């Protein structure tokens, strides 16, 4: 084995060990976890998963998360598509400043917006609703979408637009029937990244919700801080939060770097 393969193998093992351990613990009973140190579950059980799927306070966390994440992805894409087109095709007064301002919002620490968001959404009566979290996550997802989509749209030659307009297409008809199909992989990648960044965020989602829209991430931290540590259920809940990402990752594998670098690689 060449040394470089050794490095790669060691790194992959380093990545996989903690994940394996989480999976391993999710199939153990609490007695086994605390009683004996075992490398694989001797007393194999699905009980931990059963707890999550039968207890409404657990599985509603997943439902809430999925609702606001989906809402956020839809809102972000809807507003970002025309804007990205404008940035990729036209220059207009203040375009560079606007583009930079969008970037600052992607990079802004959520902690800075914590308190004002809490008061803003409380005062307009949206506290503890899914739409509040979805709108709050737009803070970083809309700029992200604009940046990624602009990257993809700039790859489409401008002659296509001009030909379509000469052929008598109106702008909305051109955009929906010709342009969108051409950048559909870009739209897919953008949707994936909106979904992901909204799915992994905890601070804002936890602050803006209390009961009805509480995300799974917040329910997990609550269990951690409670005295009765139910390690098995905690591990099972963790495994279930990884699954949505793991399911779609194969399809976006060639675009991951692009998405994280705001479409600039």
């Amino acid at each position, binding site marked *: 084995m060449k040394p470089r393969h050794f490095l790669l193998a060691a*790194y992959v093992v380093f990545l996989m060990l903690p994940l394996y351990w989480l999976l391993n613990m999710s199939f153990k009973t609490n007695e086994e976890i605390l009683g004996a140190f075992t490398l694989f579950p001797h007393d194999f059980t699905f009980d931990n998963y059963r707890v999550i799927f039968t207890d409404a306070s657990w599985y509603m966390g997943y439902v809430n998360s999925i609702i606001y994440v989906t809402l956020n992805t839809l809102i972000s894409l809807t507003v970002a598509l025309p804007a990205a087109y404008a940035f990729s095709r036209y220059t207009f007064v203040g375009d560079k400043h606007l583009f930079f301002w969008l970037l600052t919002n992607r990079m802004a620490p959520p902690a800075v917006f914590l308190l004002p968001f809490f008061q803003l959404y409380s005062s307009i009566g949206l506290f503890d609703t899914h739409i509040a979290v979805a709108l709050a996550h737009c803070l970083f997802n809309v700029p992200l979408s604009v940046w990624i989509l602009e990257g993809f749209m700039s790859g489409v030659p401008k002659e296509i637009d001009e030909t379509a307009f000469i052929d008598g297409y109106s702008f909305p008809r051109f955009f929906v029937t010709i342009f969108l199909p051409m950048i559909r992989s870009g739209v897919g990648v953008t949707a994936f990244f909106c979904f992901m960044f909204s799915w992994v965020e905890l601070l804002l989602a936890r602050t803006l919700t209390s009961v009805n829209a509480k995300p799974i991430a917040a329910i997990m931290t609550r269990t951690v801080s409670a005295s009765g540590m139910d390690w098995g259920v905690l591990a099972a809940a963790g495994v279930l939060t990884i699954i949505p990402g793991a399911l779609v990752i194969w399809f976006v594998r060639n675009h991951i770097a692009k998405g994280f670098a*705001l479409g600039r690689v």
Partner: protein
Amino acid sequence: MTKTENNRAWFLVLPVFALVAFSAIVPLMTVVNYSVQDIFGPDNRVFVGAEWYREILQDDRLRRALLRQFVFSLAVLVIEIPLGIAVALSMPRRGRWASLILVVLALPLLIPWNVVGTIWQIFGRADIGLGGVLVTALGIDYNYAANPFDAWATVLVMDVWHWTSLVALLCFSGLKAIPDAYYQAARIDGASNWAVFRYVQLPKLGNVLLIAVLLRFMDSFMIYSEPFVLTGGGPGNSTTFLSQTLARLAVGQFDLGPAAAFSLIYFLIILLFCWLFYTTMMQLGRGQQQ
């Protein structure tokens, strides 16, 4: 691409502008408002000028958090950038293995941040976690919940686990963009592996690495969920970084004035690095067009 000048394009941008203004400008103005007033009740507030700023800048706790934050972000860069480059260099360029490894590397990036904390919380425990047991088996007295050094080490290793893949993926896509002709020329010249890396690969990676450095710096600068779950900022305050200090001040103690002043200073630091990031990216875009 040459762009046409057209101010009607503003209509296309308007929805984004309205939405982001609602979720960025309104809250930011609230913060500015709070940072210069002392608020006792809804109708009872006093203008205090720069007092909160003075208080914040002299607060020892915050200074230490800021220092801790810079040390942490620098440590993250020093470890993750070389490791990421090394991993990217050792990855196969194409084929089934390349796809599989891409997927495996990307996996930690898609895990909710607090679950990353949970994973390491379990993994690092000396009694029930594999990692903790392994370290203890080496004869090291390891406990991340009690010993500040162990806590730091665990938070750092966790961040390396979580984000090195990002650096590796960025570098990988940079390496893939180098034409084969460069390698052939190097082989004809009889260049060693090191020479190929130093004079062919590294210069070509420059742009991607800049992005990687800036992204990693900015994201580690606002790290919150992972250490919050893993150590809760402890033991003591040894792993309390800026975001957590701010969250504690704002939502824990409801010290509106100082929290707002702190937010603005924090935001300005981020803004500065953002500008660096933007100029770099725009320079990069211009370089590609030529």
